[in-house]
């Protein structure tokens, strides 16, 4: 039973955070949910069977989100608690307004850095900003689920070296400092992002 009622919560929170990415799976999950409810209402007598079906519904409707999850950073914590708690890193960073400001600040720095700006030559900056904001939200246990490509796939064959990676880290740290994110949350976030290094570098030529 909880399976069916848990899923829409997930869908709502996810769709709020990453409308784009979750749109497709929203529709399929909502229709699966309707089927669940219909079965529960129209077959009250067959309670045991109904429960079994509900179990099946919960199982099948969670399947697409498992795919999504696999493509994300693999942080199980963000799924278990889709809403940011007050003591989450997301809250400590300052939530959405601060993360938005940091990403904006960061993009200006990237744009001004000739070492790395070329990597963004064919990038839709609005799309990138939204994806990066979602990723920072997700990785800091905020109410988002990054559903974009894996870090290895997103950066494959781009010719990124450690020098480029370092430069990007430097810009992000500078943006966090300029947006007055305190040292504790700033370093915790950088520590979580540092772990993405190997995935980003995995498929470089």
């Amino acid at each position, binding site marked *: 039973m909880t399976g069916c009622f848990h899923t829409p919560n997930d869908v709502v929170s996810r769709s709020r955070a990453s409308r784009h990415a979750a749109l497709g799976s929203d529709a399929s999950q909502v229709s699966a949910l309707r089927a669940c409810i219909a079965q529960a209402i129209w077959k009250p007598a067959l309670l045991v069977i109904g429960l079994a079906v509900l179990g099946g519904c919960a199982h099948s409707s969670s399947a697409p989100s498992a795919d999504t999850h696999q493509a994300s950073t693999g942080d199980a914590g963000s799924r278990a608690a889709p809403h940011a708690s007050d003591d989450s890193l997301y809250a400590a960073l300052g939530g959405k307004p601060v993360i938005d400001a940091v990403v904006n600040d960061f993009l200006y720095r990237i744009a001004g*850095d000739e*070492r790395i700006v070329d990597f963004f030559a064919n990038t839709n900056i609005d799309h990138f900003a939204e994806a990066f904001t979602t990723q920072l939200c997700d990785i800091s246990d905020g109410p988002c689920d990054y559903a974009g490509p894996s870090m290895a796939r997103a950066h494959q064959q781009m010719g990124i*070296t*450690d*020098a*480029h*990676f*370092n*430069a990007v*880290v*430097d810009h992000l*740290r500078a943006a966090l*400092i300029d947006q007055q994110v*305190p*040292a*504790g*949350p*700033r*370093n*915790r976030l*950088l*520590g979580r992002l*540092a*772990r993405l*290094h*190997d995935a980003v570098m995995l498929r470089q030529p």
Partner: protein
Amino acid sequence: MRRSGLSFLPIMLALIALLSAPAAQAGSRLLATGGVTQVEGASGGGISPWGVLAGTASEGEFAATASVSQARVDDYSLGVAGIAGNIQDRLELSMARQRFDLDTLGGRLEQDILGAKLRLYGDPLYDTWGTWSLGVQRKRMVDGELAKALGAKDTAGTDLYLATSKLWFAAVGGRNLLTNLTLRSTRANQGGLLGFGGDQKASRSLVVEGSLGLMLAPDWVVGIEYRQKPDNLGVAAESDWRDIYVAHFFNKHVSLTGAWLDLGDIAGLADQQGGYLSLQVAL
């Protein structure tokens, strides 16, 4: 820094230029991740080489550092001038000249040190196991008479070391903590200033060196260091070295380090303590 006044002016001018230089001309590694210059010329803390390489050069980049350091303890002074190059964050080559003044006993000892450090693996920020480097320091005394008189076997020697460094994000009060561990094989007496090997022990010793550095801010590091030492000379008992330090990185080009040293017994004079200052410029 008992150098001629002549060399002082260009150094000051260069410093002023570097303090205002744009960071884009520096390497891409984060501020302070190259450490400072230790007394033997390698990148590290004050007394121990670290696993990181000099400057902020990364893949495809080059860095060069120059440093002057001065230690003054109760009965001795040590001046060190060093330069180092970093090739693509893979190989560090360094050269240092040490000038050790026996303020109480009288006299001066000098030593030249050529160093190389090869990064074997990893990155202090991005790898679970940090970064690992293998280093060598070839040391040669300029005049070994006093060392020989104290019982040293040789006036030149080679240290080999394995060093590892790791940055722990938000480890203490939200601040990043840099930990370093170095394993050194050496015959050097007082780092080589009193020769190599001795009447008590002529062969190599395996010693451990370690340090902690807490990054209070991205440009401020405070920490402690410890360096175990061999004890080869019968007439001149040798102690382990330790210090507490604070380093400030003005930018990727200029850093200043201050330390309080506790060097123990040196050449028969007990309990040597004092201050240390080191200035490094990097390109």
